[in-house]
C-alpha cells in the first residue's frame, strides 16, 4: 500500500515535470510523417509509418526512462524531502520500489497514448485493417520491457551517483546492451580460454537490451511493420528475463540505498 502511495506520487511528480510534452512532439511527428512520406518515399508508406512510430516510441521512452530515472532518488536527496518520508514508517526498499513503479506507470501511460496515436495515423491512411494494428501490441510490449530494464539501470545509478554520471553510465550500458552478442564473438576470435570465460560472464551480467529488439533472430519493429506474428513463447522468455533482471537490479538498488548514511 505504501509502495503504491509512493508510486502514485512519483507519477504525479513526473507529470508535473511536463513529461507528457513529448507526446505533442510525437503527435506532430506522426501527422507530419503521414503527409510527407508520400513525397519522400516510393511505396512502403505504411511500413515507414510503423517503423517511425515504434522507433519513436522506443527512443522517447528510453530518453524518459534515463533522464527521469536518474533524477528520481537524487532529487529527493537534494531537496531533502527524503528525510520527511523516511522518518515515517516506510522501508527504504519500499521507497525504491515505489519510485520505480511510479516511473513505470508514467512510461505505460506514454506508451499507450503513443501507440494509440500510431494506430490513428494508420487508420487515417485507411489502408490498414484494425486486425493488423493488433499485431503492434507484442512489439509495443517488448519495447515496454526494454524501458523497464533501462529504468531499473538508471535507478540503480541514481541511488549512489550524480545525475550527470548516472545518465552517462545508463546510456553506456544501454548501448553496450545492444552489442552483447559481439562479446561472445570476440571471445571466440581471441581463442583464449580466459577471455572466453570473462566474456561469458559479462554476456550474462550485462543487460541484454537486444533481447527485446530481436526475437527469434527477427527485428521486433520490422516484424510489426510487415505484420508478421511474434511467437508468444519468445515474448514470454523476454518477460521472464526482464522480470528477473529488474528484480536483481532493484534488490541491489534497495541494498545500496539502505546502506546510505543520510546526514
Amino acid at each position, binding site marked *: 500500500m505504501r509502495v503504491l502511495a509512493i508510486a502514485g506520487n512519483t507519477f504525479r511528480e513526473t507529470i508535473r515535470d511536463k513529461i507528457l510534452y513529448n507526446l505533442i512532439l510525437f503527435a506532430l511527428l506522426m501527422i507530419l510523417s503521414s503527409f510527407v512520406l508520400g513525397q*519522400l*518515399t*516510393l*511505396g*512502403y508508406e505504411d*511500413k*515507414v509509418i*510503423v*517503423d*517511425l512510430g*515504434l*522507433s519513436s516510441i*522506443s*527512443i522517447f521512452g528510453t530518453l524518459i526512462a534515463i533522464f527521469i530515472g536518474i533524477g528520481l532518488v537524487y532529487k529527493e536527496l537534494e531537496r531533502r524531502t527524503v528525510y520527511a518520508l523516511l522518518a515515517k514508517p516506510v522501508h527504504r526498499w519500499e521507497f525504491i520500489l515505489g519510485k520505480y513503479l511510479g516511473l513505470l506507470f508514467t512510461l505505460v501511460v506514454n506508451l499507450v497514448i503513443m501507440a494509440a496515436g500510431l494506430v490513428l495515423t494508420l487508420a487515417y491512411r485507411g489502408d490498414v485493417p484494425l486486425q493488423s494494428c493488433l499485431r503492434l501490441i507484442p512489439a509495443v510490449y517488448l519495447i515496454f520491457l526494454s524501458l523497464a530494464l533501462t529504468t531499473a539501470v538508471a535507478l540503480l545509478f541514481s541511488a549512489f551517483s550524480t545525475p550527470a554520471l548516472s545518465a552517462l553510465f545508463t546510456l553506456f550500458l544501454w*548501448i553496450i546492451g*545492444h*552489442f552483447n552478442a*559481439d562479446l561472445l564473438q570476440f571471445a571466440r576470435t581471441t581463442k583464449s580460454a580466459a577471455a572466453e570465460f570473462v566474456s561469458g560472464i559479462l554476456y550474462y551480467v550485462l543487460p541484454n*537490451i*537486444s533481447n527485446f*529488439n*530481436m526475437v527469434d533472430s527477427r*527485428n*521486433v*519493429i*520490422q516484424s510489426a*511493420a*510487415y505484420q508478421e506474428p511474434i511467437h508468444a513463447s519468445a515474448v514470454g522468455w523476454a518477460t521472464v528475463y526482464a522480470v528477473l533482471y529488474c528484480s536483481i537490479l532493484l534488490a541491489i538498488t534497495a541494498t545500496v540505498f539502505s546502506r546510505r548514511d543520510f546526514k
Partner: protein
Amino acid sequence: MSMRPFSRPWHGWLLVAACLAAAWLIRTAQDQIDARQNRSLVDPDVLYFSSPRAVKALALGYDGLIADVYWMRAIQYYGRRDEAARRQVRYKNLPALLDIVTTLDPRMLDVYRAGSIFLAEPEPLGAGEPLEALRLLYKGVSLRPLEWPLRFDQGFVYYLYLKDYRRAGQAWLEASRVEGAPPWMEGLAAHGLSQGGDVETARYLWRRQLEGSARADVRDNARNHLASIQVDEDISTLEFFLDKYAATHGAAPARLEDLVRAGFLDHVPLDPSGVPYQYNSATGAVTLSSASRVRYLEMPDNYRKTIKDNLARTFTAKTSRHQ
C-alpha cells in the same frame, strides 16, 4: 536593492552593437579561411558509412527505421537528376546505398526490383552498372528465394542490358519453377533460350514491367522504352518505304503522305505522343519532331536493322505472292 545588468542604458546597446560587429567579423574570417581551402579537392559525393554491416551495428536495433531512411536517401540520390549530372560519377554511391537498405531490411522487395533498374539503365537514366544490378538481385534471390519476380528481373537484366540471352532464359526458367510464378514465364524462358535479341521480346518484357509494377517510376521508364521501340519501328518502316519509293519513282517523295498515295502505306504513322514525324526530303531522314512529347531512349543498333530485315522479308513475300 534591485540588480541592474548595466550601469548606463547605452551600455546595453553598445554590447548589442559589439556582438553584431563580432558576428560580421566571424563571417569575414570564415570566408577568408574558406577562400584558402581548395574545395574542388573535396568530393561532395561522400557516403560516410558505406559498409552495410557497420550501419546495421550502429542502428542499435532500429534497423527498419534506418533502412527506410537509407531507402529515401537512395531515391533522392537517384531522383535528383540535375545534382547527379554535376557529380564526378553520376551514381557512384547508389550500389552501396541499396546494399545498406537490403542488409538492414532484406524484405523490401521493391528495393531489389526498382534498384536493379536504377542500376542497370545506361547513363544518364541510370548508373549503367548492370553487373551491380545483378549483384543486388542475386542477394535478393539468396535472401528471398521464393520471390519469382526477383528471378524474372535477373533475366530482364541479362536479356536487355547484358544481351546474355542464354542466362536470361535460365533465370526465367528458374523463375517459372518457383511456386506462384505466372504461366507465361515458361514461354518467356523458352523464347530467351531459343533465340533472343529480337524486338518483340524486348517489347514484351517492357510491357510486363509496365503492367506488373506498382511503382510509378518503373512504369514511366517502361512506358518510355515502349514508346522508343515504337518510334524505332515507325522510323525504320518509313525509311524502308522511302527507299522503295525512290527505287520505283526515281526520286524521294516530297512529303510522307506520298507513300500512302503510292500504296506503300495505309496511313502515315504518328509518334506515340500523337505528333507527326519530321521528314527532310533533301536528305531522306525521318526524325522525331521537336514538338514530340516522347522521351526517346537510344535503342540498340540491331533493333532498326532487325525491323528493316523483317520488313524486307514480308515485303518480298507479299510482292512475290502478287506476282
